[in-house]
């Protein structure tokens, strides 16, 4: 038997002082938490990170937020394309975008009711929130009733999107012909909403490139050359449209998305804080905007943290509850399993699971799942300890005597008492899961289609550029510190020994 006792992170909440009869346990906890200033700041920063993750398209996006052109009237390409699978390739992005839309709508509704009734929202909030959540999920799955994903043909017909389309063509052509030595080609973001002259110059460059391409491949003309020619046409048309005047556009803070490549070659690389003010943190080696990538990395990290922790908290809670409640053989089996899992470094196991999935299936969902099914042992031991303590108490005996089913006793009566230590473990766990994902990305086992901080950092380490090392490091540091501060605060607030 391993004699190692479980280090309990929180004492039994049942031992709350009886001195404050009017207050519930959670009211006391809340009050104690609020007195802990670092923890409150941690919570504020964590919430700010959530807001940043949700509002990322307002801060960095390659599509104009607002657009006014002659003959088109005022419109918002940004809103129209918020769920477009071409602009937002990754499901995580579309999910967060739907959160953005629903929270904007929610905020609007809240404001309206506040103005009308003169006070905060009451009971009506709940059905609204439920409806908004449902909408968000549907939207993320692509069945959204509000804003539809646009088919590609529509996209091409729309003059407001022509520049972007040209950008796509360039992007695509460059991906297929990445050996080409032609430098100075624009990325997707750059093609959007420029001065007419700039657009015309851009068109000329693309045209030259297309010419070059078709000459090179005179015997075997590829799609890339014609795609480039089309792109040049579109850019010229856009320049003509702009030259008529009467157009303006409002952009996000940085007019680039996290996937926009400015050519995909090293000479396209822009260091931080140069004359190119629209890249505040420069670009990476593929010419992608670092600010946008770090910004959208928040979405990835938060998703990983929350989903992975939900998975392992569920597994750990259920197994721990079974082990602690039934004891005897169940306990023995489950604790053996825990002991087995503890003996292998969890990072090694996660690496193995992730590595065993073929590279094309290696999405962040696999990584979440891997973290989830490996890290449940801590929660399991916590919950088991709590159940062992509680199961001989009178209220459990009473519940049994009343003939309640085991399931009801476990989930309705005992589990709520084990909630507190699990909450603490989960808060620290989110930070841990974020670290695990970034470590995986750092050593090259992450999902390469998402902008993960660890991956940016690894690229920076490889190439030796400070502006690729520092921003992701700082982002990880802030996120993990904030979450750990919150976890510390909750733990201290739940500990009756530290409270007074």
């Amino acid at each position, binding site marked *: 038997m391993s*004699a190692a006792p479980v280090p309990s992170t929180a004492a039994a909440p049942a031992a709350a002082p009886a001195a404050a009869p009017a207050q519930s346990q959670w009211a006391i906890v809340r009050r104690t938490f609020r007195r802990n200033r670092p923890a409150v700041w941690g919570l504020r920063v964590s919430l700010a990170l959530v807001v940043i993750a949700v509002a990322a398209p307002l801060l960095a996006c390659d599509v104009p937020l607002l657009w006014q052109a002659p003959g088109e009237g005022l419109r918002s390409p940004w809103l129209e394309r918020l769920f477009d699978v071409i602009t937002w390739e990754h499901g995580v992005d579309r999910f967060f975008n739907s959160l953005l839309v629903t929270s904007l709508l929610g905020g609007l509704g809240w404001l309206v009711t506040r103005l009308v009734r003169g006070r905060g929202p009451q009971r009506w909030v709940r059905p609204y929130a439920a409806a908004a959540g449902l909408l968000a999920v549907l939207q993320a799955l692509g069945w959204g009733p509000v804003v539809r994903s646009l088919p590609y043909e529509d996209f091409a017909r729309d003059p407001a999107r022509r520049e972007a389309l040209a950008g796509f063509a360039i992007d695509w052509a460059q991906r297929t012909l990445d050996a080409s030595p032609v430098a100075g080609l624009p990325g997707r973001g750059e093609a959007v909403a420029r001065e007419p002259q700039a657009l015309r110059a851009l068109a000329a460059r693309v045209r030259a490139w297309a010419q070059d391409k078709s000459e090179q491949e005179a015997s075997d003309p590829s799609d890339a050359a014609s795609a480039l020619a089309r792109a040049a046409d579109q850019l010229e048309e856009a320049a003509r449209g702009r030259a008529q005047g009467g157009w303006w556009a409002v952009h996000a803070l940085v007019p680039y998305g996290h996937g926009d490549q400015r050519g995909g070659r090293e000479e396209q690389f822009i260091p931080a804080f140069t004359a190119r003010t629209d890249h505040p943190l420069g670009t990476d080696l593929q010419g992608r905007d670092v600010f946008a990538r770090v910004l959208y990395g928040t979405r990835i990290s938060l998703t990983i943290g929350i989903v992975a922790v939900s998975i392992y908290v569920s597994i750990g809670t259920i197994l721990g509850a079974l082990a602690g409640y039934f004891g005897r053989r169940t306990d023995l089996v489950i604790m053996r399993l825990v002991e*087995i899992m503890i*003996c*292998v*470094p*969890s990072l090694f196991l996660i690496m193995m699971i992730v590595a065993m999935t073929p590279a094309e299936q290696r999405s962040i969902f696999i990584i979440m799942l891997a973290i989830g099914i490996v890290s449940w042992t801590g929660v399991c031991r916590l919950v088991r300890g709590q159940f062992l303590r509680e199961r001989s108490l009178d209220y459990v005996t009473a519940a049994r005597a009343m003939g309640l089913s085991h399931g009801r006793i476990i989930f309705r009566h005992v589990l709520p008492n084990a909630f507190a230590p699990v909450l603490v473990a989960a808060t620290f766990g989110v930070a841990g899961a974020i670290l695990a994902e970034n470590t995986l990305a750092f*050593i*090259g086992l992450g999902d390469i289609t998402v902008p993960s901080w660890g991956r940016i950092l690894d690229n920076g380490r490889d190439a*030796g550029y400070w502006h690729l090392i520092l921003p992701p490091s700082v982002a990880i*540091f802030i996120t993990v510190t904030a979450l750990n501060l919150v976890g510390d605060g909750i733990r201290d607030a739940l500990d009756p020994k530290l409270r007074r």
Partner: protein
Amino acid sequence: MTTYLLRRLLLMVPTFLGISVVIWLVMALSPGKPTGAGGGGEMGADPAQMDPNKDESERIFREQFALNRPVLWNGWTTLSDEEVLAAVEAVRGGVSGSGIEAFRRARESLTDWGRYAVPPLVRLLGRTEGEVQSAVLGWLRYASLWPRSIYAAGVTPTDEELERDKRRLAENERLKAPGMQWPAGATAAVRAPVVQRWQSWFDEGRAEWDLGAWARVGRGLSDTQFGHYWGNLLRGDLGLSSIERKPVGEMITSRLKYSLSLAVPSFLIAWVLAVLLGVVSATNHGKPLDHGIGVGLFLLYSIPVFATATVLQRILAMELKWFPVSNFDSGAAATQAMTTWQELKDILWHITLPIVCYTYGGLAYISRQARSGMLEVLKSDYVRTARAKGLPERQVVWRHAVRNGMMPVVTLLGTALPVLLGGSVVIEYIFNIDGFGRLLLNSIYQKDYNVIMGVELAVAALTLVGMLITDILYAVMDPRISYA
């Protein structure tokens, strides 16, 4: 105490078994497949052109890793005639007739079954006729041949094994004889004696084909991927690396010195520092020094090792050039010319940065535990007694309190080891040191299954030993725990 130790040691065995099962299952059931040195050639529909000894590297690879066996349960001892016939028909139909998927599957099962398919094929040979019979004969000739034995590089087979190989070769020669086949389009009259000869060959070797129920169960459990792996493991054989073709055990032990020379010093440093910091922090409880240490450690704890290591490497090694950028030493050529002392200094100079990064990962965690342990003890009655009887504060803290206050830290010893080893992947990746972590990472990139398994098992074994040491230390430090 001895009984306790013994029981503790015995309990390690099922735990280790469980670990190997869990790791193995994760690997065997994952969708990816390991890669070997050789790729499989394009498959034809004619078994006559196939030879179990052809496409050698691919076959060796599949054989060595028992990939031609089922994962957990081998039910091929009871293959039915219909099953085999269906497979033969599907292969005969070709890609165009049966569809690519069905063709591949049938073809794969026929090759994997090997000698398991002999009894149904012999029975089928007597039952079928025409084209189908020819196809059955082709597969029978394929299945009945003994594959060449595989020996690891540098391993010389024993006389017994050589004898067996010779016997098998002779039998193969006999089966390849012209009397055991018929030309294309042969009539039934030509075929009958051949079928007869196959039947008599089969009857001769009855003992191999006729298995009792228990033998079937035994075969079903043992002749599987898992059975083979475990059989080898029991003999202390971790298998061969599919990329380097070297024994995995050897590869791991050769890397062990790199990993341990990082892990052990940094663990000791982290431990001593953590205890010091914990004690200082606890004795100054509530004072600015305590707060300062607390905040500092908290911030340290929140920066991931890979970020610190990257930044340190960049500043100290690349810009200031105080330390070498990577590697364990200056390379074999340079160290040859050095004296032992110089070599040691060279290695130390190289691994200082990795050790610092390594240490720092565990430091914050351990010292937080040390602090809380000390705080608890400093409040206890016996410390008050010690103070009351007039002992100097230094003696109270270092002689009386520390011993008990370090209990939670000792418990960490066992659980910290896997965490530390987990960190080794990142450190070794950044500083390009050929330890455990690099080995695992490289074999993961290359899907070298045996190496992955071997490293994980080795780490698990190390952790088990670490936990054992923890328990012993615990018993030594705390006389209240009795293990009668």
